C-alpha cells in the first residue's frame, strides 16, 4: 500500500509552458542548492569518512520522488510506494535497511534520510541524502565484517522510520540508533549535519517557488526530466546495439574472503525500439559471505546515464527523466539481488566492478570511446587496538589506484574513480595513529602499457608502532584490470607483511584481524589501470619521459617496444627494430586484453604468480534452488 500524502491544499498544480531560458535558470538554481548542501555537510560533519573522504550524497527530487539533481538518487519513488503510513509536512524519514528499500542504500553503514518539502500545504519536492556512518554496531569495529554470513551480524537495522514527526525529533528512536554505535558522537553530528543540509534544500526550493511560482517551478522540473529523456534517448540510439548485435560482457570479483571465487557478473545489452535493455542473466548466485551487492535497478540506470552523458554535455543537471527508456533485469538470488538475510557489508568491490562491466559493455559498439578497466574499488585498510595509555585507536582508510588509459589520455597515477573522494594525508595519520608511513609512492610499470598509459597503483608502507589488529578488504589480486584496443592489463594488487624479525608473508586480499606487533611493516600495493590503444604507437619520447620520471622502468619501456639507453634517452634504431619484432609476434590487436584465456587457466597460474592457492569454485546450489 502506498504512503498517504497529507496535503492541506488540494488545489492541483498545473503544468505550464516554461521558456527555455527560465528552465536553464531553475536548473542553475537547483545546481547551486545542491552545491550548498554539500558545503554545509562537509563543514559540520564530525566523522573523517564524511568530513575528509566525502562519503555522502545529496539529491533534490520532484514531488513524485524523481531525482532532478544529485547522484545517487532514484529511490524515493519506491519508498513512497512501499511506505505504509502518512507523509506530512515536517516529517523526515530514515532507513539503512537495503532489503526494505530495494537496495537504495546497499549496506547498513549508509543512513538514508528523506524529507518531503511542502509549500503552501502542498507536497512540491523531496530532498534526500545518505551518508556513510563510521560504525553502526555489529560484530567488528567499523561494521564491515568480511566473514558475516547474515546481515544481522553487520549492525543495527533501521527499517523506514519517521525520525522527525511534524518537525519533532523522535528522541527515543534516535537514542536506540546511537546506543548501538561504537562512535555515537560522530553519528549524531553526521546525522544533524545531514538534517541541516536537507533543511537548506527545503529553503532553496521554497525560494524558487516564491521566485517563479509553483506551477512554473514544478513544470520546470518536469521539463528538466524531459530534457534528460530526450538527450538520453538520442544517446541510446547512438550507442546501444540493436537486438541482432547484442553486446555481452563479464567481469569478476576474485574471492569472497572465505576461500571461494571468482564470482562472475555478466550482462547482455541491446535495444528494443527506443528502450535499452541490461540483462544480468548469467551472473553468479549470491555468496555465503558479505560481498553481495544488492543493486537497485534505478541506481544502475543512473550509473549508466551519468557515465555516458558526461561525454555529451558535462554541464547538464543529470536526473531521472530517462528511466523508462532503460530496462534493467537482475535475476533473483544472484549476487546482485541476494535474498534476505544475506550479508551485504563488503559490497564495495562489486559496486566498483559494476563500472568496469558497464565500460566494457558500452564500449564494444564504440571502441574509440571505450575506456580500459580502472581502479574499480575502494579497498579498505583497518588498524585498531589499544595504545600505550590503554586508549582504543581505530583507523579506517580507503586506498587509491590507477585511473585507466582513456580516449582522453593517460590515466592519473594513484587517484580515485569516485567523485569527491580524497586521501588522508600521511602526516595526519602519523600524528593521530601509532603508525609511520615509510613510503607513499606510485608503483612503476603497474599501469598497463598502451598508446595512453594506465595510471600506476600506489604502494603504502605502514610501519606499526603498537600491537594491534589489521583488516584488509581488497580485490583484483587474481584477475587483472584489463586493457583495451591493444592496450595491456595493469598490474594486480599485492599485500606483503614484513615482520620485525625479517620474515615475509603474503597477505590475502580479504582478511580480518591479522595480529601485528610494533615494527611490523605492511606493504599495501594497489592495482594499476589498464592501458588504452596500441603501446607500439606511443611516442617513444613520452615513454622516455615516464622513465626519467620513475613512472616506467627501463625494462618496463620494452612493453612499449621502446629501448631506453643508460642515459634515459630513446635508442631510436633499437626501438624501431624491437617494435617491428613485437608487433609481428603479437599479430591482431585485442579489443579486450584480460591477461588470461579462461578462469580455469588463470587458477592454474595462481600459486606461482600470486603465492596463493586458487580459490575454490563457489557453491551455489542452495541459492539457485531458493531463487527458483
Amino acid at each position: 500500500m502506498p504512503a498517504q500524502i497529507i496535503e492541506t491544499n488540494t488545489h492541483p498544480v498545473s503544468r505550464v509552458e516554461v521558456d527555455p531560458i527560465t528552465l536553464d535558470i531553475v536548473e542553475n538554481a537547483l545546481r547551486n542548492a545542491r552545491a550548498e548542501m554539500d558545503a554545509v555537510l562537509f563543514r559540520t560533519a564530525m566523522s573523517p569518512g564524511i568530513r575528509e573522504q566525502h562519503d555522502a550524497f545529496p539529491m533534490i527530487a520532484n514531488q513524485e520522488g524523481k531525482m532532478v539533481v544529485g547522484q545517487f538518487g532514484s529511490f524515493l519513488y519506491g519508498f513512497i510506494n512501499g511506505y505504509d503510513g502518512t507523509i506530512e509536512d515536517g516529517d523526515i524519514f530514515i532507513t539503512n535497511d537495503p532489503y526494505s528499500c530495494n537496495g537504495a542504500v546497499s549496506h547498513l553503514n549508509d543512513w538514508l534520510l528523506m524529507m518531503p518539502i511542502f509549500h503552501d500545504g502542498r507536497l512540491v519536492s523531496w530532498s534526500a541524502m545518505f551518508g556513510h556512518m563510521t560504525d553502526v554496531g555489529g560484530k567488528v569495529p567499523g561494521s564491515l565484517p568480511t566473514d558475516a554470513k547474515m546481515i544481522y551480524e553487520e549492525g543495527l537495522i533501521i527499517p523506514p522510520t519517521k525520525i522527525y514527526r511534524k518537525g519533532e525529533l523522535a528522541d527515543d528512536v534516535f537514542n536506540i540508533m546511537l546506543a548501538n554505535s561504537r562512535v555515537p558522537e560522530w553519528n549524531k553530528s553526521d546525522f544533524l549535519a545531514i538534517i541541516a543540509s536537507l533543511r537548506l534544500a527545503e529553503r532553496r526550493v521554497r525560494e524558487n517557488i516564491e521566485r517563479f511560482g509553483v506551477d512554473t517551478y514544478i513544470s520546470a522540473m518536469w521539463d528538466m526530466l524531459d530534457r534528460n529523456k530526450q538527450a538520453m534517448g538520442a544517446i541510446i540510439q547512438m550507442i546501444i546495439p540493436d537486438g541482432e548485435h547484442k553486446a555481452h560482457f563479464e567481469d569478476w570479483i576474485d574471492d569472497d574472503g572465505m576461500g571461494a571465487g571468482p564470482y562472475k557478473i555478466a550482462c547482455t545489452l541491446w535495444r528494443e525500439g527506443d528502450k535499452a535493455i541490461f540483462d544480468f542473466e548469467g551472473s553468479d548466485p549470491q555468496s555465503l559471505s558479505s560481498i553481495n551487492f544488492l543493486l537497485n535497478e534505478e541506481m544502475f540506470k543512473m550509473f549508466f546515464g551519468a557515465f555516458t552523458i558526461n561525454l555529451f554535455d558535462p554541464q547538464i543537471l543529470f536526473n531521472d527523466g530517462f528511466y523508462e527508456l532503460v530496462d534493467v533485469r537482475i535475476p533473483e538470488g544472484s549476487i546482485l539481488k541476494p535474498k534476505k538475510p544475506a550479508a551485504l557489508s563488503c559490497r564495495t568491490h562489486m559496486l566498483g566492478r559494476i563500472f568496469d562491466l558497464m565500460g566494457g559493455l558500452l564500449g564494444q559498439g564504440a571502441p574509440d570511446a571505450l575506456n580500459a578497466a580502472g581502479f574499480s574499488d575502494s579497498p579498505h585498510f583497518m588498524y585498531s587496538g589499544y595504545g600505550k595509555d590503554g586508549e582504543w585507536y581505530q583507523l579506517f582508510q580507503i586506498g587509491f589506484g590507477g585511473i585507466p588509459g582513456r580516449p582522453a589520455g593517460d590515466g592519473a597515477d594513484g587517484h580515485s574513480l569516485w567523485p569527491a573522494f580524497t586521501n588522508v594525508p600521511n602526516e595526519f595519520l602519523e600524528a593521530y595513529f601509532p603508525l609511520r608511513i615509510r613510503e607513499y609512492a606510485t608503483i612503476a610499470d603497474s599501469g598497463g602499457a598502451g598508446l595512453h598509459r594506465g595510471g600506476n597503483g600506489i604502494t603504502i608502507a605502514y610501519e606499526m608502532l603498537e600491537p594491534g589488529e589489521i583488516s584488509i578488504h581488497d580485490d583484483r589480486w587474481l584477475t587483472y584490470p584489463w586493457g583495451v584496443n591493444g592496450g595491456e592489463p595493469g598490474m594486480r594488487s599485492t599485500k606483503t607483511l614484513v615482520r620485525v624479525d625479517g620474515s615475509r608473508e603474503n597477505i590475502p586480499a580479504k582478511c580480518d584481524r591479522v595480529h601485528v606487533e610494533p615494527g611490523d611493516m605492511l606493504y599495501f600495493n594497489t592495482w594499476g589501470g589498464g592501458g588504452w590503444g596500441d603501446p607500439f604507437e606511443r611516442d617513444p619520447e613520452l615513454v622516455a619521459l615516464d622513465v626519467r620520471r620513475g613512472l616506467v622502468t627501463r625494462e618496463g619501456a620494452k612493453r612499449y617496444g621502446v629501448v631506453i639507453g643508460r642515459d634515459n634517452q630513446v635508442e631510436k634504431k633499437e626501438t624501431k627494430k624491437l617494435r617491428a619484432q613485437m608487433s609481428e609476434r603479437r599479430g591482431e590487436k585485442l579489443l579486450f586484453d584480460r591477461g588470461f584465456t579462461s578462469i580455469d587457466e588463470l587458477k592454474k597460474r595462481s600459486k606461482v604468480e600470486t603465492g596463493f592457492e586458487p580459490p575454490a569454485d563457489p557453491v551455489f546450489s542452495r541459492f539457485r534452488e531458493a531463487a527458483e
Partner: protein
Amino acid sequence: MDDLIRLYEKRLSDLEARISELDKDLRGDTRSPASSTSTAAATTTALTPVRQASAGLRLGVDVGGTFTDLLLLDEKNGRTFTAKVPSTPEDSSIGVLNGIEKICRQADIAQSDIAEVMHGTTVATNTVLTGSGATVGLVTTKGYRDTLQIARSYVPGGLGGWVIWNKSEPLAALEHTIEADERIDAQGDVLVPLDEAALETDLKKLRDSGIEALTVSLFNAYANGAHEQRIAEIARRILPGIPVSLSSEVIPEMYEYERTETTVVNSYVRPVVSKYVDNLQNELKSKMGDVKLHILRSDGGLSSASAAMDSPVNLLMSGPAGGVAGALWIAKRAGHKNLLTFDMGGTSTDVALIENGVAQTRRETRVADVTVRAPSIDVRTVGAGGGSIAYVPELTKALRVGPQSAGATPGPAAYAKGGDEPTVTDANVVLGYLPATSKLGGDMTIDRDLAVKAVSKVADALGVPLEKAAEGIVDIVNENMCGALRLVSVEQGYDPRDFALIGFGGAGPLHANALAGLINAWPAIIPPGPGVLCAYGDATTRLRNEASQTIVSPLAELEPAEVNRTLHTLEQKAAADLAAEGVGQDKQDVFYQIDMRYTGQGMKLTVDMTPEEFTREGLEGTARRFDAMHEKLFTFALDAGHELVGLRAVVQGAEKPFVGKDYGHAGTDAGAARVQTTQIYSGGQWYDAVIYDRAKLQTGNRVEGPAIVVEMDSTTLIQPAHVGVIDEVGNILIWPEGQEG
C-alpha cells in the same frame, strides 16, 4: 582521538612558539620577515612597518591586464588624483613609472614628494595562470617523491568525471625531484639523520638539469625544520644563485601535499616576482630617493618589498585584495559597513563579503587549479565575465554560458577584433545596455551588427527571437555569478538582505542592478571610477597588527581570569608594535578573536568580541555566542562540550579622516547630465531609455530607470522600475523604485 588532537595541538603550539622565537631573532634581518608574516604562529606579529610620509603623499598603484591605475592621496590637503595608463605586460614596471610621471604632472608635485608606494600586483597570479614560472627542483623525504603526482587523489566532476579529466602537470616535475635520505617523526624527533653525501650528489644532478628555483619540503618538517635548513645550506653552496624555499618557513603546517604544493608555488613564482619587485624598487629609488615600496598581500595586509620577494606565494590574490580594500574604503565613506563586493571583468568575476567593515579571510588561496595554503581575503571567483561565450549543446538544447571566454583577443564580436562567438558583452550590446555610442577605455568602438550576428547563432539554435536569446545569456551569466555570491553569503550564514552590493570592474556596473535584485541586496553601489577602485584600495589599506596564541583545551577546564590575562597580554603586544610604527594608543581599535569548536569537530569558528564584551560575558558568554553562530551557519547547535582552539588580539590603526572631491549639490533633476535617448530591452520588452554622462551627475540627482550612465571606463545600467541616486561622495546608489533608503 580527542586526546590525540589535543596532543597534536599542543605540539603545534610549542612549535609555533619556537618559530616565534626564531622570528624575533631574525627580525633584524630585513630579508627574512617572510615567515613571520605568512604564518599564523603563536604570538608572532604580522606587522609591516610603514614610515610616515614626510610630505604626506601616498600612492596606490594597481597593475591590471589592460590598464595600470594610480591614485595619489594628499592627506594633509585632502586631495586625490587618479591616472590611468596602458599596462606594459612585457615589463609592468615601465607602465608603473609612466603612470607615476603622469600623476605627478597632474598634481604638480615632484616625484620625490611621494613617501610611500602601495602596490597591488597580479604578477604572481599571471605567472601561475600563464604557466610562465621557473623550472622548480624539489627535494622530498625518501619515499615521498610522488607527493605532487598523487596529490590528494581527488578527481573533479561527478560520477564518471575521470573519463574526461586530464590531470595537469605538477609545477615541480618528477624528473626534477630528488629524495633526501632522512626522516623526522611527528613529534619532530630525528629518526634517520640526513645523508649529506648522497644529497650533494643528487643536488649536482639537479644543477645540471637546469632548475631555476629549489623547494625543500620534507615529511613532518612542520614539526622540525632542521633538516630543511641544513639542505638549504648545502644547496646554496652547490646551486649558487638559485633561490631556495623551505616548507618549514613558507608554511609550517601539517599535511604534506598542501605544504609541498604551497612551497613549490612559492619557488615557481619567485624568480619572476623577485625580478619585478627588485627592478621596481630600484627604479623608484633612483627617481624618488628614500621611498618605501609596499606590496599588498592576498590577505589584505601590506608586505615590505623584501618579504614579498621571499614569500611571493602570499601575493597570489594581491590584485583582488586591492579591489576589496577599495570597495571597503568607498563604501565606508558612503556609510555602508556590510557589503558584498562584485568585481566583474572580461573572463572572471570575483566576489567577497565584508561584514562590519572587515573582509572575510580564509587560510587558502586558489588560482585556476592551483590551491595553496596561504591566507587570503575570501574572494570567490567564477569563470563568468563579459567575454564568456554562450553556446547551445546539440543534444540537450540547453543554453550554456562560459566558462570558455573570448578573452582579450579575439574578444567579443562587438569589438570587431575578429571574434565571432556570442559573448555576454555581445548580449549586452544587443539589449542596448552597451550603446554603440559608449566608449570603452576611451578608444574602443562597439559594432552592434557584429554582436547581432554572433548572438543570432544562439537564437537560431534555441529557436527564440534575438532579444530573447540575448536576455537569456545575460540572465544565465547573472545566475552563475549569483551562485558565487551565495557561497560567500548565505552559505556562510549571512543574509544578503543585510548587505549592499558594490559593483565594479569593467562589467560590474552593467550587471550590479540585476545581481542585487537576484539576491535582494540593496542598494547596488556603483563607485565613481569603478575601474580604479583597486588603486584606492592599495592606497588606503589600514595598518593592522595581531598577536595570537594557540591554546587547545576544553572550556570547562579553563580559568576565565587566566584567559582574560592572556588576551590582555596579546593586546598589549600587538598594540605596542603598532605604536612603534607611529599609531598612538588613542588611535587604535582593538578586538578579540576566540577560535572555538565542539569537542571532536574538525572545523572551528571565530567569535569576535571587544575587550569590554569579553570582560562582561566571560567564557560562558563566548560559548553562547559560538552556539548562536553555529546555529546560524548550520541550523543546529550541539549539547557537546566546547573546546577553545586559539586566542587572538587584533589592533587596527584608526582611519584617517579624509575630505574627498565635492560632488556638488543639486536637486533631484538629473537633466543636466542627459546625453541622448536610446532603447533597451528588458523583461521581454523594449523601453525608451536615457543615456547620462556620469561626469555631470551631482549629489542628490535621481536617475530614473531605465537608464544608462556612461563614463570613461565603464557603463552602468539602471533597470526599469529602479532609480539611481547620487550620494555625497559621488556613488550611484541603485534602488528599486519606492524603496530608496
